[in-house]
């Protein structure tokens, strides 16, 4: 995904931001925050939580920027922080979560319910299918299609050999397609 122009862009603006240039930092935030947010929202299905974690990710990046040496791995770095934050948050929420009846959940999450009913059938099918994927498969799909990462970056990020990663992605896509077809067939 990242070509040499993107790397140059990262290098220049990150270097300036690392020296405290707020204007350069704004450019970095404007470029990266939508991607991070989309990835987090896809995982959390909660817009507010996704934004909260996005802010936390960028606070961490800003704090560590002085020690960061840009070598074309910024994308992996920022997504790694996002993934770690997401996992921490999910773990924390799981610890504090109490089992609730789905009707109660529907009552307390009107925004989500409204969105679900407004969403196209395919989108609902896709979400249901995504929920049925193993965590790692879902992570690869999200990083690739929501985060817009290259396979190479994902391989670095997840410390997986490229071949393994491509095979996993291929299997995950097939699984997803089958699940969606089944879902659409059931609902038809």
């Amino acid at each position, binding site marked *: 995904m990242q070509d040499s122009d993107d790397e140059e862009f990262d290098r220049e603006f990150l270097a300036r*931001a*690392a*020296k*405290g*240039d*707020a204007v350069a*930092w*704004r450019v970095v*935030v*404007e470029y990266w*925050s*939508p991607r991070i*947010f*989309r990835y987090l*929202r*896809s995982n959390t299905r909660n*817009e507010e939580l996704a*934004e909260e974690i*996005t*802010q936390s990710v*960028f*606070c961490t*990046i*800003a*704090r560590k*920027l*002085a020690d960061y040496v840009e070598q074309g791995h910024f994308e992996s770095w920022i997504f790694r922080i996002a993934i770690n934050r997401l996992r921490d948050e999910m773990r924390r929420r799981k610890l504090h979560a109490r089992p609730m009846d789905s009707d109660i959940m529907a009552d307390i999450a009107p925004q989500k319910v409204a*969105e679900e009913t407004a*969403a*196209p059938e*395919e*989108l609902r099918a*896709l979400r249901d299918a995504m929920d049925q994927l193993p965590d790692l498969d879902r992570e690869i*799909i999200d990083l*690739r*299609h*929501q985060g817009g990462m290259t396979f190479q970056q994902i391989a670095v990020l997840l410390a997986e050999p490229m071949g393994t990663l*491509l*095979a996993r*992605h*291929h299997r995950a*896509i*097939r699984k*997803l*397609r089958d699940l969606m077809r089944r879902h659409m067939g059931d609902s038809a």
Partner: protein
Amino acid sequence: MDTPEDIQFANTLRVLNASASSIPPGLSARVFQASVVHLPNQEIAGRIGSRTSFQWKAAAAILILVGGSILAWQTSSARDRSTCDDRSLALVLEASASSSGDENFIGLASAQGAGFDDLDFEMRSILPAGQAGR
């Protein structure tokens, strides 16, 4: 590795997700606001600010302490002097009340440790004009 069908499906997936992936208005601005204060030099500026503030506070505290010590020292010496003067004065008054003679007056005051200079001063300041010279 992906078949054309897979690629087409991946594109569909992307389009579907994109349709539901509008970004909340002002997201970048809020993220920027929350994070800009953590930029390296912004934090250094903050630390310099707090250090300056701390230095001012420390300087003010030292000044107060030094000033307080000087004041306490001066008050203490003044009290000591005042005690001495009070004692001398009491002696002078006592002597002048109990004796009409200069010898007794000087003798009694000397017995209490008052110097001749003190006595001269006390006598001049207490006794009516003309009497001190007797």
